[in-house]
Structures are given as C-alpha cells and as structure tokens.
C-alpha cells in the first residue's frame, strides 16, 4: 500500500525538519559565551613582578592583545608580529627610542611605527573599546618587557603620555 502524506503535513515536516537540522548543527560545534573581561585590580603597592602578572592577565583579557591579534612563540604567516622576545628587541626597533618609549608608543600611538611586513590596524589601547587605564598599560608594558627582557617599569614610571 502506498503511503500518501498530505501536502500541508509535508510542508510542516519540511519546515520542522530543516529547522531541526540547522539547530542541531548549531549545537554540535564548540559552545562559547563571550563575557566582558573581569576587572583587574591594581594598587599602589604593586611591584614590577606583580605588574608582570597583571599585564599577562590583561593581555589575554581586557587588553585583547592575544585574542586573535598577536601571538607568543609562533611563526609562519601571522596577522600581527609575534611578541616572543619583544622585551629584548624593543630598544632596537626605532632609532632614538628606549625599550620603554618604544613599547609605550606602540600602545598609545600604534600607527606611528608599523613593523615591516605587517599592516596598520591596531587601535590605541587607552581608548574605547579597549580603554586601558595608564596603570593598566604600565602593567602590559611590564609583561612585554618580561618576554625576553628585564622588566623595570613601575607604577611611578612616567611614560610621557
């Protein structure tokens, strides 16, 4: 006996089946909720070592440095420069700028010097949407200095910005 499904029911089944199929695809891929970065507390007693730890946290959180932009210890076709060893080579990147001045300029005015081979695109991280405070930027600089160099920035350091 031939089973005949009425046309309206076929349409309903098609709509429900297609919707269920696409929804199922949405369930099987990795699920990730993207929450705002948690606040990072910086107090006046923090040492340079403390700032390095805070800077590392900021780099992968509120600062968004490591969220799809920079990498640490990767090679090949990269979107933006790999940060491995940046603490060591910062002083030699731009003539006349110390490592601290270079790193501060890269964060406050990233368009002034673009590493050869890469495109301009980074936003000033003291402005929205990233909007790091001056103390938070010092923490990020301390972390950058720790990547192949010796951190010396403190909360009293004048970055010139």
């Amino acid at each position, binding site marked *: 006996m031939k089973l005949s499904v009425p046309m309206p029911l076929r349409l309903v089944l098609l709509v429900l089946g297609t*919707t269920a199929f696409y*929804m199922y695809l949405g369930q099987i891929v990795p699920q*990730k909720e993207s929450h705002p970065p948690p606040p990072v507390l910086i107090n006046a007693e923090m040492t340079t070592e403390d700032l390095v730890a805070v800077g590392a946290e900021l780099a992968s959180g509120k600062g968004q440095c490591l969220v799809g932009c920079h990498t640490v210890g990767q090679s090949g076709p990269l979107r933006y420069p790999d940060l491995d060893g940046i603490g060591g080579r910062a002083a030699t990147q731009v003539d006349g700028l110390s490592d601290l001045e270079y790193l501060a300029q890269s964060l406050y005015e990233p368009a002034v010097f673009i590493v050869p081979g890469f495109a301009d695109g980074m936003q000033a991280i003291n402005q929205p949407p990233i909007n790091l405070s001056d103390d938070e930027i010092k923490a990020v600089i301390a972390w950058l200095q720790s990547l192949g160099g010796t951190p010396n920035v403190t909360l009293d350091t004048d970055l010139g910005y």
Partner: protein
Amino acid sequence: MTRNRILFGIGVLAFVSVIVTVRLGGFLVDNEYRQPDRQVAAQEELGEAELVPRQQGIADEQAADEAEARARPYEEAEYRTVPFVGSRVTVWVLAQLHLLFAAFVLAVPLFAFIIEFVGYVKKEERYNKLAYEFTKLLSVSFSMTATFGAFLTFALIILYPKFTNYLMHIFSPTFLPYVLLFFLEALFLYSYYYGWGKFGPKMHLFLGFMLNIVGTAIMFIANAWLTFMMSPGKRDDIDGDGVPDFVSAVSESGALLSLRDAFFNFTWMPINIHRIIANVAFGGSIAAAYAAFRYLQAKSDEERAHFDWMGYVGNFVAIIAFLPLPFAGYYLAAEIYAFSQTLGIQMMGGTFSWLFVLQAALIGNLFLGANYYLWLGMGRMEGGVHFQKFIKWLLIAIALCFAVWATPRYAISSVSEIAAMGGSSHPQLSYLGQMSAKNTAVNILILSTYMSFLLYRRTGRQSIHPHRQLLTRAQAIVFSSAAALVIFYGVYGYFVDSATRIRFAIPQVYSVLAALVVITVIDLPLYRNAAQSGETKWGRIPAVSQYALIFIALSFTWLMGLMGYVRSGLRQEWHVYGVILDTSPDAYTPSLGFATQVVSVTVLIFFGLIGVVFWLSSLSGKKDYAPGAAAEDGGRLEGGQTA
C-alpha cells in the same frame, strides 16, 4: 467535502468553547464568597459598617500596597526584564521578525516593478500578471512589518529605556522624516496594488518606482540607527598623513557631536548595499516559496504552469541576487575590519569563528538547492538530455567546494585526538580551513552555479549566430581563466604574509565578476532569436522541485537570522561600540547553540505567519461565495468520486 467537515468541526469546537467559558465564568461567580444575606440585613438595620474578616483583610492589603507605593521614590529604570524569556531574547525575536517581513516588503516591489516594466516594453500581458501575483503578497506583509515594528519599538522603550532614550537623543531629527516616508510608502504601496489595471501603464510604473524609492529611503534611515551602534563615527584622514583616523560622532561621554557623522557612519553604506542585495535574494526566495505552495495546491495544468513559471522567476531573482551577495558580504566585512581590527578579528577569528562553519552549511545548501532546481527544470524542455552529462561534474565541483568551505580550521577533538594531531588543528585538513581556501571555494561555487544557469538557458535552444563556435569558445576561455585565476590566488595565498593574503580576495572577486559579466554579454547575442528544438512545458517538473524551492526559502531565512546574530553580537558588551556599555545581566555574547535555538523559534514563527500571508493571498484568486454554487460544487465532487 473534507474541507467542509473541517470547517464544520472548527465551528462546533468554537461554539462549545464559548459555552464552556460562559458556564465556567458563571460557576466561579456563583461560588464567590458572599456575606450572608441575614448578616447584611442585620448590619443595615443597626447602621453598622463593620467589615467581615475577609473584607478587612482585602482593605488592609490595599492600604499596605498604597502606603508602600507612596513611600517608594521614583527611580528611572535602566533595564526591565521579561519573565522566563528575558529582555534580550524578546527584542531579538521581535527585531528579527520585523526585519524579515521588512526585507520581503522592500524586495518584492523591486522585482515586481522590473517584471512589470519588462512586460510593458515587451508588450506581453503575462509579465503584468506575474508582477501582480507577486504584489498580492505585499499588503498583508506590510501590516505584519508595521505590527512587528510597533512591537519592537514598545519592547525597546519598556525593556531598554535608558539606551532607547540615548538613541532618541542622537537620532530624534530623523524620526519625523521616517514617519513621513512610512506614510508615503503606505500610500504608494496601496495605490500600486489596488490601482492595478485602474491607471495607465506609465502612471502605474511611476507608482511602483516611487514605492521602491521611498522603501529604500526608509531602510537607509533605519540602517543609520543600527550601524551607529556598531560604528559610531567615520574614518577620515584629518592629520593629512595618508592614514585614515577615527572621527567619533559623539563625545567620550556620549554627547552628540555631529548628526551627519552619526548617520553616515563607517558601516552605513556597506550595510545598505548588503541589505538591498540580500533583501532581493530573500524576497525572491519567499515569493518562489509562495509559487511552490500554490503549485502544490493547483488543481489544473494551467494553474501548475502559471505557478511553475512564477516559482522559476522568483528563484531566478533569488539566485541572481545571491551570486554577488558574498562579494557584498566581503565588502562589509572588510569595512568592519577597516573600522576596527578588534571587531573584525572578533568576527572572523574570535567568538564567531564557528558560526561561519554553520554559515558555510547554509550557503552550501542554498547553492545545492538552487542547482538541483535548475537541473530538474531542464526536464521542462525537450532536448534537455544533451546537457545532463555536465551535471555530474558540476555536482562534484559544488560538493567539493561545499566541503572545503565547511572545513573548520580547528577541529572538535578529544584530548587523545589532539595529541595524535599534534594540536587542535588537523595537520593537513586545517589548510582547507583557512581564508585562502574558503575564498577560492565560494568563488568556484558561484562560477559553477552560473554555469548551471547557462546550461538551463541553453536547454531546448540552438544558437543561429554566424560566429556561434567562436563565441562559445570565447565563453569557455573566459570561464576557465577566471577559475584558474581564482585557484592560483587561492594556492599562492599560503605562501605570503597575512596582509597580502587578505588583498588576494580582491582579484579573485573581480575575476569572477568580470567573467559573469563578459559571459552574459556574449550569451545575449549568441542566443538571441535562437532556434527552439523543443517547447518549454511549464508545469512539467517533479513536485520535489517545489519542496526544493521552499527549502531554499527556509535556508535564506536561517541565513538572515544567523547573520543578524553576528552583526549584533559583534559589539559584545557594548550597546554602542566603545561609547555606551551594556550593564544589564545580558551583557555577554551568547553561545552559537543558544543563538541557533533563538533563530529556530524565529524561523518557525516567521514561516507560520508567512503561511497565513500565503493563504490570505491565495484567497483573492478564489471565486466569490455563492450558496447555490457551493452546493453544486459539492454535488459534482461527490458525483465525480462515485464515478
């Protein structure tokens, strides 16, 4: 007969429901607590006004509520919530439904006008009829659009009062023009629809033209509001160093600096372009779904032929608009990148990267569905067998491109699998997950679909052009060159830095676009006045093709819903990116799984409502009610069944 029984059943059910409701209400009123009559009489006699305990309790509760309300100071709410569903999901679903109907209402007049114009130029009445058939869908859809627009506005004012107030602060000067345009759109739409056959053709075409102009202007204004939330400003080289600087339309505190910059913001025009094209593709697919619905309902060959043709035209419109859509999408994405690298990276490499795998499945299905429909359509024409040998190669190309596009860069793997692969990406397959491979796949998909369309166009026709061999070879060379160029840049992209690789998308896109234009320009004279080797038999197509049309419309709707999630979710915890933070409990981007659940609900509601639109539109073609005729019809049907 069955229909009459169903209608009778519904009537009986409604009657019984009313009786039950009245009886239930009566029962509750009868059983409500009442003070005993003798006690009331005694109190009246004594002149006492003493309350029984229940009355006293109610009075105390009311007094306490009033005292509490008086003691509470007025506070302006920042957010309000909707129980169970939540504010975000409420606004999300309403906005999406408004947008889907609005897209349809904006798109249909566009191609109805073009079809009417073609009919006017060619002096063929069938085009006029077809345009009218499309326009029939508009009036109910327009009401739906307005209803959901009002719902959305109320929901925003109630649930997000502070943020809505902020948007009003920025855009209040645009509201009056918007309302006036909306009024004009209603005027032009209804005069276009009801004036069919009542005005001269030029006047009627003018009404259609104005309807499109006004509709597009309305969309442009609404686009300014939503794109401002993503890019509240423009980029301009203000310091003359050759590098565009960000010029915010608002101050750091959010105060308006320039309405012009807020309106003509950075992503406004890319969204305008993307939406016009996407609306036409979506509108075409929904109109084709309507034709499919009518085809499946059709009782006569004549009806089937008419709705088969309508479905073909609707699908043709959808696919022709769909082919350049990835380019418009690329332009929009590139502009988002140019506005903010953070937004761009978030879109393609961050939270939403997996969404594009799902998008690939949707677009792949759209291409497969569209090609399948075209291949089935070859059966309408005698002589179609000649081209069917090419279909398997096209199918292989489409399936391969689909597979490449759907390959994620990072695989979903267990710990042992990650260890075996040496990372979360597969050592070989992850190459297919990169942008170079995906750009190549989508361009080849577009070329393949266009090739399907060309084969369809040639089915049952033979060119009589004196240079037909030369021109056909020229087309083949253009096609092969474009494909080769796309593949060359796709492979070369693996050997250059990211900045160069991103720029390779441009020659890929241009070569495909150029190929489409050149091949079309050659094809028009090549097949002008072509010899017909067989007649096109509209209506001679398997019924499954009509389900394919509905599947295409479903996939388009899904795609719109999913892309709405990305566009809005990109802002993450910002209402207005970089200016107004979202401080509500919903200040996070939900997972893709959750988003697909919301999109599912939206799609189901939309298809439920569009089913009502289809049904109402189909009523206009039915005969007027006449009691005698209904009895006669019933008698004939029964007689026929008996025979």
